[in-house]
Every structure is written in C-alpha cells, then in structure tokens.
C-alpha cells in the first residue's frame, strides 16, 4: 500500500470521517452531505487535484442515492472515492461547480438519469435522451423491460418462434 494513501486515510479518520483503503492506491471516504464541499476542497488542496468522474448508485433497499466523486492524484498515483449518501425521497445535492467547473456536465447527466437535483447548477436540461417523460431510467424502480416491450410493441408470435424473454433476476 502506498504510504501516502495510508497517511491520507489516517488524516481523514482524524477529521471524523469513515475512511478506508480499498487497495494499494485507492481509498474511499464517506462524507455527510453538508461537509462535501469542505472535504472536496480539502482534497483538492492536498494533492487530489483532478476530478475524474461523478457516479451515482441507487441503493433502493436503503432508500438512498450514493454519489461517488472520483478524484485522482497524479503525483502520487493515488485515487480517492469520496462518497456522499442522500435520501432517495428527497434527491437534492449542492453543485460542486465552484470547486471543479467540470462537475457541471456530470451533474447534468446524473440529473437526467437519476433525477437528482443539483442546487446551483445553472443548466440541467436533458442531455442524452430525447423527449423523456418517464421516471429517470437508471433508477432501480424503473422497469426497463416493461418499458421496452411497451414502447416497441413486443408481441409473442408462436409461428415465428418469438417468445417473451425471461426476466433475469439479479441476486
């Protein structure tokens, strides 16, 4: 494990955050929503200058969305995952555009696919999907098979051997 990663994890733990190393060069840190801006600014100031990606995970059993800010430190060759959990019934989050202007695009995308509202982002217009009127498609409660069958008019046809596909259950 990289020494700097170890150090960073210790440092973050001292700041009352849940942090743990995930591998030799990667660690994650769980941040409460109201401290996100502070921690991200801190990370940026201490070497993790590059914002790579913003991801979102829909933990439907916990009724929570998890936003993952993926940061990179190219000097140390280390990576940080800053995770923020927000409640699913009130999907709201502060925009991090003041720290990385690049966040604008990712937040716009997350808004489109998960319906999370980013406060302070000026442009959250739909980006990929044309004329989307259903619930955001990457939420776990969105039934994509049913949607597909409904929209594209799937019909079973025994004579041509077209059968309804089986739903795959993930465990």
């Amino acid at each position, binding site marked *: 494990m990289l020494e700097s990663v170890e150090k960073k994890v210790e440092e973050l733990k001292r700041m009352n955050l849940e942090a743990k190393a995930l591998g030799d060069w990667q660690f994650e840190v769980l941040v409460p929503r109201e401290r996100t801006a502070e921690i991200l600014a801190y990370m940026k100031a201490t070497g993790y200058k590059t914002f790579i990606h913003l991801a979102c995970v829909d933990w439907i059993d916990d009724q929570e969305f998890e936003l993952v800010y993926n940061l990179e430190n190219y000097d140390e060759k280390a990576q940080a995952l800053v995770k923020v959990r927000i409640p699913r019934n009130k999907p709201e989050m502060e925009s991090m555009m003041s720290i990385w202007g690049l966040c604008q695009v990712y937040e716009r995308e997350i808004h489109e696919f998960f319906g999370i509202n980013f406060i302070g982002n000026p442009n959250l217009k739909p980006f990929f999907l044309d004329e989307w009127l259903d619930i*955001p498609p990457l939420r776990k409660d*969105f039934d994509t098979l049913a*949607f597909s069958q409904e929209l594209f008019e799937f019909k079973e046809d025994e004579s041509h051997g077209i059968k309804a596909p089986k739903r795959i259950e993930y465990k």
Partner: protein
Amino acid sequence: MSEWKDLTNFFRGRSFWMLHYCTGCGAMELPPTMTSRWDMERFGVIPMATPRQADILLVTGYLSLKSLKRLIYTYEQMHAPKWVLGFGSCTINGGVYWDSYNVIERLDKYLPVDLYIAGCMPRPEAILDSFKKLRELVEKGEAKGYEKYVKNYEWYKANQDRVLKRTKPVLQKPEEVTRSA
C-alpha cells in the same frame, strides 16, 4: 418495356453504391470487407460519402432512438431506387439490447428493410453473400422496399412518431412521474 426494366435492374444490381451508417460494432466488419482480403468492389459495391449518391443503406448495428431519427432523415434524402440492409441481430430484434429502454428492437417497423444479415456480428462472407442476394432480388424486381415505404408511409410514420415524438410517459401516469424541472 419490360425488357428495358430488366436491363435497368440488371445494371442496378451490379452497381450498389453504399452508405454505411456506422452506429455499432458492425462497422468493424466493413474495413476487411472493403480491403484486399474480401474486396467488395468486385461486386461493384463502393462506399459513398453522402446519401444523395448512395443506393443501399447499410445499418450496421443497434440503433438508439436518437440515431434512428438521423437514420430516417438520411434514408429520406436518398434517391429512389434505394435499399436498406439490416446488419446483425441488433437490427432484427434488438440483439443484446433486447430490454434496453433506448434501443429499438425491429428496424423494419420504421424503415423498409430489404434484407437482413443474421449474426452478431456477421462475418464479411455473410456481407458479401447479402450483396449477391440483394442483386438477385433486384434483378428479379422483388426488392421494392422503397415503394413499400411510399405506399405504407402512414404506417411507417405512425411507428416512427410513436417512438420519436412521445407526448406522454410510456409506463407511468403523468402524476406519478417525480421529476424536477
């Protein structure tokens, strides 16, 4: 007059100018088909730069709703007679994207497909075979997709509008949609 038609069909079948709509992985199969290993120019098939010049439209792979719109626009800019070749299982039934909310399943609901090439992806041999098959169909005067499209334009248009110009949610009722502006 029928001899004249046969003659034109004979020439048309031997000079397919192709517009390849490279959406998916199928585009990868075309370079070997064009170059020295398989050389489709033997059959008079050469790639063209714009739909105005092309005779056949090769849809190489899955089509998202967004690219379907462009494909229809492209198809309508081509000059008759024109033919559509559906390429790989994605154009037949959606392929691996069978349950995707944003990838269409059957291309021939929206455009008149004259010939499907099965496979995921089809090999260059299959592509060459399809050209030969299409040539036979054209010579017999059976490949009439463009006429079908004109004749059944309302049906095609309705299908296109159903997926491209949605006015209400597909699954949910409007009040259920929780979506902030």
